[in-house]
């Protein structure tokens, strides 16, 4: 049987020889055995490369439960954010405290003993197929050829051999046929212990630089078999891990030393302009704001200015212009790259999290979020000027959530809510606010289960208990009807924006609009699988055009 598959594989390879003659990057026909040799060699090289990389890894887990009507809903969640380090096994320097203290275990001995514990490094581990990938440890079976977007792939089943160690990968790999990089692997690690578990995962790599395919997305899913019995409970969950912040220059800010930009060599401002006390105060506050924004961008938590900021800026401008507001200095918009739903202001910079942008159903809902933050700015809720001193940022990246706080107190939040309603009342969004209220209702509905999703890391809480932001909008919204297909109160996670894991740039997703077939497909705030369309990096395309062939 295997020899038959090998023959089919060779025939398929030989059929591509014509294409290879035209394209200098396509490798000459290789036997399946030679192909596997190249794959193993490339994968070993990948592990070495990954040891030099320290991306941020964000994992979000939703525990699920199926009710008697077979509706599946998240019942709890978990969130990890850390910087990956593969130098000494898989390690994560976490941005938040991971372990409950001793007192928690003492006060909740039963729940403490009976609860599953998610281990961040176990999710981060899924970026690597096998840290010591050896051909002799596995059996490889050719399956077929398949396109994953632009990348033409050889699909191979990989199973550990008899003498493979515990924890060897078992599943399927997709290998792009230009350079034999693994671009996707789907399966689990074989073996187990009584107390610890490996999960099933689907790990994707993107071609982020010339000849460099790096882990970007991982989807994890486990479906328990006896979900309704408290005694026979089993793992039933979905999770996503996203990686970004690979560009080491961005992390070190080295380019700023080597790139000196001179915008205008002649100072053409009128002479003798002194800064008065008010102006000095504004400049001081702007400095604090800039320091904070720069630092968040440097450590990979804030996206560099880009297309998505411009969309936010347009909505903010709509609010400013229609309300005839004069705001000095200008209001800016930026996107926090993390998932938890939050928005906040740093001085005159409005920050919205990627997760929040992802789940907002329409522009009016976005306007509502931005109007609330604009309310803080209009009301003069200022930035903490201690951030004007650079030494305030001399701390480890992982301490950012502990050291930086942009949350507002209850009175300021209430005032911003009132101001936002005023701003929206005279804006182009005034007749479309029903969906914004519905979004808040959906948030309140799912809030108790998804505590980690709605817990802000830097800003203020959007919903807490029965209260949400903008209570007036909440109260005036129509009732939430889960079975109505045309009522979309919130989108699944990952619906709006696309993240470039190398540069941290965000772009809007270019997905086709899809008609929902059943209420199950609404999936508000839920984790869904990834199915990205792979493409070769621009640098790789240039190499193809120049006809260069890599060894």
């Amino acid at each position, binding site marked *: 049987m295997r020899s038959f598959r090998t023959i089919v594989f060779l025939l398929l390879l030989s059929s591509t020889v014509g294409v290879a003659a035209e394209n200098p990057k396509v490798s000459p026909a290789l036997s399946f055995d030679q192909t596997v040799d190249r794959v193993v060699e490339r994968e070993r090289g990948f592990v070495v490369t990954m040891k030099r990389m320290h991306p941020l890894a964000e994992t979000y887990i939703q525990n699920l439960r199926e009710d008697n009507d077979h509706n599946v809903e998240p019942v709890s969640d978990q969130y990890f954010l850390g910087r990956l380090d593969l130098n000494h096994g898989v390690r994560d320097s976490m941005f938040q405290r991971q372990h409950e203290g001793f007192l928690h275990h003492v006060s909740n001995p039963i729940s403490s003993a*009976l*609860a599953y*514990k998610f*281990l961040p490094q176990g999710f981060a581990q899924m970026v690597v197929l096998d840290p010591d990938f050896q051909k002799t440890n596995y059996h490889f079976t050719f399956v077929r050829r398949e396109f994953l977007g632009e990348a033409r792939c050889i699909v191979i089943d990989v199973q550990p051999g008899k003498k493979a160690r515990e924890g060897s990968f078992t599943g399927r790999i997709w290998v792009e046929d230009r350079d034999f990089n693994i671009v996707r692997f789907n399966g689990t690690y074989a*073996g187990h212990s*009584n107390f610890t578990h*490996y999960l099933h995962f689907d790990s994707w790599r993107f071609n982020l630089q010339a000849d460099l395919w790096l882990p970007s997305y991982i989807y994890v899913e486990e479906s328990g078999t*006896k979900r309704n019995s408290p005694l*026979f409970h089993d793992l039933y969950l979905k999770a996503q891990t996203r990686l970004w912040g690979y560009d080491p220059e961005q992390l070190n800010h080295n380019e700023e030393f080597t790139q000196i930009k001179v915008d205008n060599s002649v100072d053409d401002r009128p002479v003798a302009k002194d800064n008065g006390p008010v102006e000095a105060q504004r400049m001081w506050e702007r400095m604090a704001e800039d320091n904070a924004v720069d630092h968040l961008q440097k450590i990979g938590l804030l996206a560099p200015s880009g297309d998505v900021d411009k969309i936010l800026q347009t909505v903010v401008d709509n609010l400013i212009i229609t309300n005839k507001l004069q705001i000095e200095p200008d209001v800016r918009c930026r996107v926090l790259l993390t998932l938890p739903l939050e928005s906040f202001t740093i001085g005159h910079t409005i920050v919205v999290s990627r997760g929040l942008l992802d789940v907002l159903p329409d522009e009016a809902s976005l306007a509502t979020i931005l109007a609330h933050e604009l309310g803080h700015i209009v009301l003069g809720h200022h930035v903490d000027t201690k951030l004007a001193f650079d030494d305030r940022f001399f701390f480890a990246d992982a301490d950012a959530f502990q050291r930086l706080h942009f949350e507002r107190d209850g009175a300021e939040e209430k005032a911003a809510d009132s101001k936002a309603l005023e701003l929206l009342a005279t804006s182009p969004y005034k007749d479309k606010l029903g969906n914004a209220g519905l979004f808040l209702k959906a948030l309140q509905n799912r809030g108790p289960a998804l505590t980690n999703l709605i817990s802000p890391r830097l800003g203020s809480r959007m919903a807490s208990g029965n209260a949400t932001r903008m209570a007036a909008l909440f109260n005036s919204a129509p009732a939430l009807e889960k079975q109505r297909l045309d009522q979309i109160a919130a989108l699944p996670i990952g619906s709006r924006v696309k993240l470039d894991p190398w540069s941290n740039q965000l772009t809007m997703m270019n997905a086709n609009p899809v008609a929902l077939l059943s209420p199950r497909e609404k999936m508000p705030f839920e984790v869904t699988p990834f199915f990205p369309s792979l493409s070769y990096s621009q640098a790789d395309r240039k190499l193809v055009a120049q006809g260069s062939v890599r060894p």
Partner: protein
Amino acid sequence: MRNTMRTIGKLCFFGFVMVAPALAQNQMVNAPSPAVSGPAYDVSVGYSRLSMPIASAGRANFNGLDFAGSIDLSPRWGATLDSNYLYTPAVLDTRHQGYVLSLYTGPLFYPIEHRNTRVFVRALAGMGLVDGAVPITEAQDFHGWLVRPSYAVGGGVEQFVSGQLALRINGDYLRTSFYDAAGAVQPQNNLRLTLSFVFRLKERPHRSSAQLW
């Protein structure tokens, strides 16, 4: 001599507890990190046989049932609650029946786990009720019962036969108390062997078909 043997036994036990984690760690060093840990708990029922010394008369054998439950608190540590009822229709040459009822709890340590097999050692403490008899003369014997704090140390092996079912064999040294022929309370050094069926209350992850290669 007896004390020396006991000291050597204790030293061996503690040496094993200290060295085993290092050996186990070495075995795991290259394995990928798991993504989830815990919880794991099981109940077991089994057959036990106990050999009990009767003061100045030899050893009596008891047979009975063992019921236990355990929970794993980490990959290496767990806790157990063990109850045991052992019976003999006649204690040595006396005409008296005897039984031992014990209830213990304590920590479990798993020094080695490989595929479907794991080894454990444990140290338990609790109460032991001994109902027995001691021959005084050929025609007379002393009969009674005694409840005293008691302890046990031992270990065993578990072999999983399916997702939820395992076989466990373990041996324990039990320290109980009973009267001697003079009516004084004396400690007893018992040996107990147990064979149990273990039923896990959470399905153990399926063994991958890949491992059948």
